[in-house]
């Protein structure tokens, strides 16, 4: 789901960068107060896990491949701000070290996966928790993959309309949303199931260790 460099037009990534820098500043506000000696090692461990998960490419029928995100477990255990910052760091490392996602696309990737993914997980969990906690965690994790998938598919799929040559041919990503939406969402519907299972495991371990209330 990481968008590489050269796929997005400046008309897309420049406004996204402005929004992302604002969001990073907001997330970093009061960071020192929210961190304590017991939380930092746990955050480090799960950030490392999210980093590792993003590097394990699973073959998907149809010839492509995908990976889990790990953003839901960060959001459910550490809240929106810390999850967004930690996952943005993960995306930055993956872009710099592996070329998995581009630097110009980092703001879109961070906003879609880090911010929207975390927010989706938290809102879903809070809405469903009174009904059934396990279901709430699983659905939250599944949606934390699916909703960023929609955003990334739209960001890519709108490129032919946003930036095109005078003859109408696309300057950047060539496929429209009618192609990108199914191409991204169908595999990620399956990846979301794995994400849900993994998040549930981490959540139960965290409950056992009394990391969460």
């Amino acid at each position, binding site marked *: *789901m*990481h*968008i*590489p*460099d*050269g*796929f997005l037009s400046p008309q897309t990534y420049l406004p996204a960068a402005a929004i992302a820098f604002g969001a990073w500043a907001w997330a970093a506000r009061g960071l*020192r107060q929210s*961190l*304590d*000696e017991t939380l*930092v*090692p746990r*955050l*480090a461990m799960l*950030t*490392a896990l999210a*980093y*590792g998960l993003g*590097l394990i*490419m*699973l*073959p998907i029928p149809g*010839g*492509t*491949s995908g990976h889990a995100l790990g953003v839901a477990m960060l959001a459910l255990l550490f809240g929106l701000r810390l999850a967004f910052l930690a996952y943005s*760091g*993960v995306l930055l*490392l*993956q872009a710099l*070290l*592996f070329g*998995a996602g*581009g630097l110009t696309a980092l703001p879109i990737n961070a906003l879609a996966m880090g911010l929207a993914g975390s927010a989706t997980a938290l809102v879903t969990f809070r809405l469903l928790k009174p009904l059934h906690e396990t279901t709430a965690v699983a659905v939250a994790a599944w949606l934390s993959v699916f909703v960023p998938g929609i955003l*990334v*598919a739209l960001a*890519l799929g709108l490129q032919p309309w946003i930036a095109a040559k005078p003859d109408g041919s696309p300057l950047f*990503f*060539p*496929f429209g949303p009618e*192609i*990108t939406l199914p*191409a*991204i969402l169908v*595999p990620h519907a399956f990846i979301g199931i794995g994400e849900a299972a993994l998040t549930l495991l981490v959540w139960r371990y965290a409950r056992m260790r009394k990391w969460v209330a």
Partner: protein
Amino acid sequence: MRVWMLLLALGTTLAQAHEVHHRIEASGAVLVTLSYANGQPFAYEKYALTPAGQETPQQVGNTDAQGRIAFVPGSVEKWRLQATSADGHGVNLDFSAPSTQASSGAAATDLATPRWLLTVLGLSLIFGIFGLIQLLTRKRP
């Protein structure tokens, strides 16, 4: 009879004008292989190969089943390869075509840093940064 012969000759000439000729030869082509991080070929995906500084691609098409693109660079050294799949994977790569005469028959050299080393480097950075944060946020007794 002469009229029929004339028409036949004319028809043959016109038919030849629509033919597509072919020539098969072994010549020095450059092979680019694209794959996902797990080694799976980037197969049957769209690509465009453009000489550096130009806007019109010299070659467009789809990668083969093994994720390969073969092209003849000629005198052009610098190239840009754009390859995309509908699900947002792909590359936007500037590269220098190796001399086909020099590399003929030689194995390609992979100068990339090993993936495991990059993984360890990334993990070290994560734990290093959080270790620093831990030191900075530690409350003094």
